[in-house]
């Protein structure tokens, strides 16, 4: 049982060892894939080497781990991610140092130095020297050819072309010694580069062409692309721009197909330069823009910096322009707002001013109208009153003339009759009586004429005035006849503002006067009562009542007195009623219709 178990464990360990050996060989073979020569796309290579790294880590295989890190670093270099490349290279370097893998350590040091050539030449040379010394000490010919080649590149970059040629030649010797096919193209390309810089263009093109042919044989597409570009560069240096362009254009699709971004970018730059030399600015700009697309590429760092700087300047300028444009827009908007505000404020101000002006004009016009209306009313009133005054005055003057003329003539007639009566004093009494009647009639005519003229001018007589005049008459009658008792009642309560026309007033007065005189003269009355009553609608009633003798109205011979009364009443459109009987007194009633 124990023996069997030991045998089983032994077999297992042997199998495991064999299996591990097989896996390590596989890892080594994968890590041996030349990235430069590979036809596999970079993305696929990333996956392959990542998987290989995991496998190596699973097996805890330091060489495999370190080389896988190194390969990934190289791929990052092709991708243009310099930080990642450095990080993975250092990871690989730590693995090699820890496990004393000297050859790998020597080569990686030299490789790191080579990769740092554009960033820091001093550091690059230090790493390169370290790697070269390690390789020379241990005579690692497998890596020394590449180290020499790379060191030559550093020298070339520093303008030390002879030193560069020296190292390239040393590298080429080792390649030849090892008959390392993949090594030839590097050496030839490097030599071609130096000769190109030395102005030996034919020699340079010859080396590049040789390198390209070998690469065609081994299928190193990336190398082929590089050689096309290098040949193009030689033509460009010679001033043969068209030839240069044709080679650059050959390089671009190959580099693109291989995802060799740095080379593609660099070739675009060279294309741009070639077109620029030909003064075909559109094409130059086109390739410059394509070149700019690869701004993250490691070898285009400076250009990228410039582009970035230009971009920055451009962006800055663009932003400044945008800011200026925005400011201009803001200023324009502000101006627009100001214009609008000015329009609004102006309109408001204008409206306010116009409104105020309108109000002030309206106010002034209103006042003027009010004043004019007042003045007009006064003018109308004045015109009316003046016209009335003129009419009245005219009437008054005519009346006066009439009175003066007719009155004086009637007076003259009376005087003449009186003289005639005196001269005819011995004449028949009938004639004398007739003359006396004519004289009295003329005198009455004068008085009536005066009453008429007065009434014509007076026009109206108030009820109070008439009352006063009648009262005066009654008082006078009373004073002339103390034995007779007079009474005068005037009822105006229903119409205190009653107005008579002057004709009415005079005729009423004369009727009262006649009635009272009759009562005194013929009726021998003891009591005479005069009453007057007025009410609305021009209605009035006057009564003169006495307790005298009265008379028989039917048999009474109508004298001048009653006739005059009837005539006066008729003139004013009223009615006269006389009620009397012998010994029963008399009632004379005058009433409006």
């Amino acid at each position, binding site marked *: 049982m124990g023996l069997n178990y030991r045998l089983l464990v032994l077999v297992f360990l042997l199998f495991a060892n064999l299996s591990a050996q097989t896996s390590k060989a596989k890892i080594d073979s994968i890590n041996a894939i030349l990235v430069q020569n590979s036809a596999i796309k970079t993305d696929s290579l990333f996956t392959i080497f990542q998987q290989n790294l995991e496998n190596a880590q699973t097996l805890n295989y330091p060489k495999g781990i370190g080389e896988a890190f190194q390969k990934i670093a190289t791929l990052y270099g092709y991708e243009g991610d310099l930080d990642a490349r450095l990080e993975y290279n250092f990871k690989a370097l730590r693995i090699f140092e820890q496990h004393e893998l000297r050859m790998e350590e020597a080569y990686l040091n030299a490789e790191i130095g080579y990769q740092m050539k554009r960033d820091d030449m001093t550091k690059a040379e230090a790493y390169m020297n370290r790697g070269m010394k390690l390789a020379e000490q241990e005579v690692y010919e497998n890596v020394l050819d590449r180290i020499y080649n790379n060191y030559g590149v550093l020298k070339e970059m520093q303008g030390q072309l002879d030193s560069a040629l020296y190292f390239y030649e040393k590298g080429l010797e080792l390649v030849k010694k090892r008959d390392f096919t993949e090594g030839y193209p590097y050496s030839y390309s490097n030599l071609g580069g130096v000769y190109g810089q030395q102005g030996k263009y034919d020699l340079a093109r010859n080396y590049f062409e040789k390198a390209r042919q070998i690469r065609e044989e081994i299928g190193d597409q990336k190398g082929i692309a590089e050689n096309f570009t290098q040949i193009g560069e030689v033509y460009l240096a010679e001033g043969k721009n068209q030839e240069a362009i044709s080679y650059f254009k050959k390089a671009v699709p190959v580099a693109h197909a291989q995802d060799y971004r740095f080379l593609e970018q660099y070739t675009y730059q060279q294309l741009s330069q070639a077109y620029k030399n030909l003064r075909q600015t559109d094409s130059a700009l086109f390739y410059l823009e394509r070149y700019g697309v690869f701004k993250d590429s490691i070898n285009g760092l400076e250009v990228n910096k410039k582009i970035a700087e230009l971009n920055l300047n451009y962006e800055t300028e663009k932003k400044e322009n945008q800011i200026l444009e925005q400011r201009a827009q803001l200023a324009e908007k502000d101006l627009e707002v100001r214009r609008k505000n000015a329009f609004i404020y102006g309109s408001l101000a204008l409206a306010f*001013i116009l409104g105020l002006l309108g109000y002030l004009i309206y106010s002034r016009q209103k006042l003027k109208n009010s004043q004019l209306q007042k003045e007009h009313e006064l003018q109308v009133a004045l015109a009316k009153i003046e016209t009335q005054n003129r009419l009245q005055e005219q009437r008054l003057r005519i009346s006066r003339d009439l009175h003066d003329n007719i009155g004086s003539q009637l007076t003259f007639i009376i005087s003449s009759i009186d003289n005639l009566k005196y001269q005819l004093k011995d004449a028949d009494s009938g004639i004398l009586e007739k003359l006396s009647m004519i004289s009295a009639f003329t005198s009455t005519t004068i008085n009536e004429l005066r009453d008429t003229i007065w009434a014509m001018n*007076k026009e109206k007589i108030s009820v109070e005035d008439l009352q006063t005049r009648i009262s005066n008459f009654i008082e006078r009658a009373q004073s002339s006849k103390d034995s007779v008792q007079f009474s005068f009642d005037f009822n105006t309560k229903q119409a205190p503002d009653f107005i008579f026309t002057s004709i009415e007033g005079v005729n009423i007065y004369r009727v009262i006067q006649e009635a009272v005189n009759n009562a005194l003269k013929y009726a021998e009355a003891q009591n005479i009562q005069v009453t007057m009553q007025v009410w609305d609608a021009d209605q009035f009633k006057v009564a003169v009542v006495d307790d005298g003798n009265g008379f028989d109205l039917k048999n009474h011979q109508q004298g001048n007195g009653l006739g005059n009364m009837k005539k006066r009443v008729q003139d004013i459109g009223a009615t006269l009623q006389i009620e009397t009987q012998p010994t029963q007194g008399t009632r004379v009633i005058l009433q409006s219709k």
Partner: protein
Amino acid sequence: MTLESTYVLGFLLPVSLLAAVMVLIFLKLKSRDQIRSRQRIKRLGEQLSLAQYQIKYRHKGLDRYNLLRYNLNDSLCIQSEIDLF
């Protein structure tokens, strides 16, 4: 003071000034109108008073007429200041 308020003030001041000047001018014109109107009204009033006085004067004369004495000459008072034509 903000820019906007300064802007508004820039409008407000001249408008206020213009409005004040307008108001003053119109007050002056109204005052002149009122004085003239008062003068005219006063003159019309005086003429009216004179006319009313003339009416009163004439009526006063007519009131003097006594219906018992027939004194017409005393009541018909001629006014020479009334221009008939």
